[in-house]
């Protein structure tokens, strides 16, 4: 396979996954901001939405204040923001068009129709309900693309590269949520387990659709260390770091086996997977959750660079 085709496949998946993640963040933030101040606290959720999306710099260069209107516009529709939902779908679609023949018909239709329909949304005139509907539509588009890939692609290197994109992006997103929410300081008078705490952490779980899963796994009220455990170490949880790396390692291994060569990407992915497998939550808290997540994000980026170096250029 041409490196360029592999690159396109990988990035289509990454961008579609990123669009879904942005929709989830916006949805969770909308819900959080709808809470009364007494529950929601005085922190600005829209600030943290921008930070979680990883584009605070670009946002504050264009806008003064983070509020519902400006953040929704910037993260969902802005053509100037290279990681807005709109831009994600646009880049995904142009990547897909560049290697149209490497995709199945179903995948191409899913991404192309998404793009065509996206242009019909008029952001300026949308009510809050319409925005909510739009965000759900974005998630459905991602589901459709992902499901088409899963159901129709041949299990060869094309499939593995596209999966690699999904899981690398997903790991990055989950880590970012954890990183930003970790910083969200509780007001001094709030004791741990208070209402503010509950809604914040429940919002995190919702943003990765894990609230129900949480209750199934722990059968307990929502506690930050268990949330962290679920999203970092639990490999049953499809958006956890452990689960993403399980899949990354498997797909990289399939690629290595098919090509008969392996290199730094495989080694790095295995090292991260091993660390996640051999860690325990109390150990991570002891050495600092923030440092752990920061280290993970750096490792994940390094892996992205190693994959690009090894296969995509």
């Amino acid at each position, binding site marked *: 396979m041409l490196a360029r085709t592999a690159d396109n496949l990988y990035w289509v998946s990454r961008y579609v996954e990123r669009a879904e993640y942005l929709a989830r963040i916006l949805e969770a933030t909308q819900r959080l901001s709808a809470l009364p101040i007494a529950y929601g606290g005085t922190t600005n959720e829209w600030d943290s939405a921008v930070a979680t999306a990883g584009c605070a710099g670009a946002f504050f260069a264009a806008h003064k204040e983070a509020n519902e209107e400006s953040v929704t516009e910037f993260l969902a529709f802005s053509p100037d923001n290279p990681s807005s939902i709109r831009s994600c779908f646009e880049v995904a679609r142009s990547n897909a068009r560049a290697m149209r023949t490497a995709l199945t018909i179903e995948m191409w239709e899913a991404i192309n129709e998404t793009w065509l329909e996206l242009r019909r949304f008029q952001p300026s005139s949308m009510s809050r309900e319409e925005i909510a509907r739009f965000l759900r539509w974005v998630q459905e588009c991602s589901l459709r693309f992902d499901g088409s890939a899963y159901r129709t692609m041949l299990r060869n290197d094309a499939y593995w590269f596209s999966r690699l994109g999904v899981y690398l992006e997903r790991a990055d997103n989950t880590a970012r949520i954890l990183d930003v929410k970790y910083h969200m300081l509780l007001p001094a008078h709030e004791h741990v387990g208070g209402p503010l705490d509950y809604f914040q952490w429940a919002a995190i779980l919702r943003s990765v659709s894990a609230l129900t899963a949480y209750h199934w796994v722990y059968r307990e009220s929502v506690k930050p260390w268990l949330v962290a455990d679920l999203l970092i170490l639990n490999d049953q949880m499809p958006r956890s770091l452990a689960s993403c790396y399980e899949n990354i390692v498997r797909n990289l*291994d399939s690629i290595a086996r098919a090509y*008969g060569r392996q290199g730094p990407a495989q080694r790095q992915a295995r090292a991260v997977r*091993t660390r996640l497998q051999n860690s325990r939550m109390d150990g991570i808290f002891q050495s600092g959750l923030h440092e752990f997540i920061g280290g993970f994000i750096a490792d994940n980026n390094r892996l992205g660079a190693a994959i690009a170096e090894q296969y995509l250029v």
Partner: protein
Amino acid sequence: MRIRIRHDTTYHYDVPVGGVIQMLRLTPRNHDGQFVVDWRIDVSEDCRLDAQEDAFGNIAHVFTADGPFVALTVLVEGEVETQDTGGLIRGAVERFPPSLYLRETALTAPDAAIAGFAADARAAAGADPLATLHEMLARLHRDVVFDTDPTHAATTAAEAFALGRGVCQDLTHIFVAAARALGIPARYVGGYFHRSDGVVAQDAGHAWAEAHVPALGWVAFDPANGICATEAHVRVAVGLDYLGAAPVRGARDGGGAESLAVRLLVDQAARQVQS
């Protein structure tokens, strides 16, 4: 190196056995030098097989099978991807501080001869613990003859050292006992070894030792081969001695006399080139 392992253990009983319970430490874990690509355990009879982690962080399966049956096969099979780390063991599961591995056990109690051997090695190598360990490794490999006949599973380090003969298990026990006699934490490692001479079918798994060197952490020494662990070693379980890391321990109800056949294949799965 990608190592493919197939290890089956078959028991034949003269009289049908009423039930068997076993503890299997046959599942490797990942660390920086090895990655388990694929691994499974098959038991020939209907059984209950529960995975758990023992105190040392090894994966242990407990299985119970209700009889009657006259034969039982436990098969483990899998693929492990390894890298040469120069014998350094990093990123492994550590549940205890190194000082725990100074503890003496019945199989690894040093007698005067082993203590003398350790002191000689230290005198020859100087104060550096790593140099001392390498000296012991070289001397053991030179002086103790590899011989499967005279020793058995319950032979102690002191007995094997007095004989001057033994298998990898005995050499490892002697090494561990000597290291501990010098105050260096050391432990027993059970696993598999891919032979470079092309012999694929082996009679038994392999055993080597790990010793803790302050500046480096755990370092693996293989006295049977006279080397530090390489990418040919697949590390499965650690313990204070053989009993703690034994691949299979168990009991059975009835069954009369038992005969045991082990078949072990360790081969390179596919030749891959590292880029």
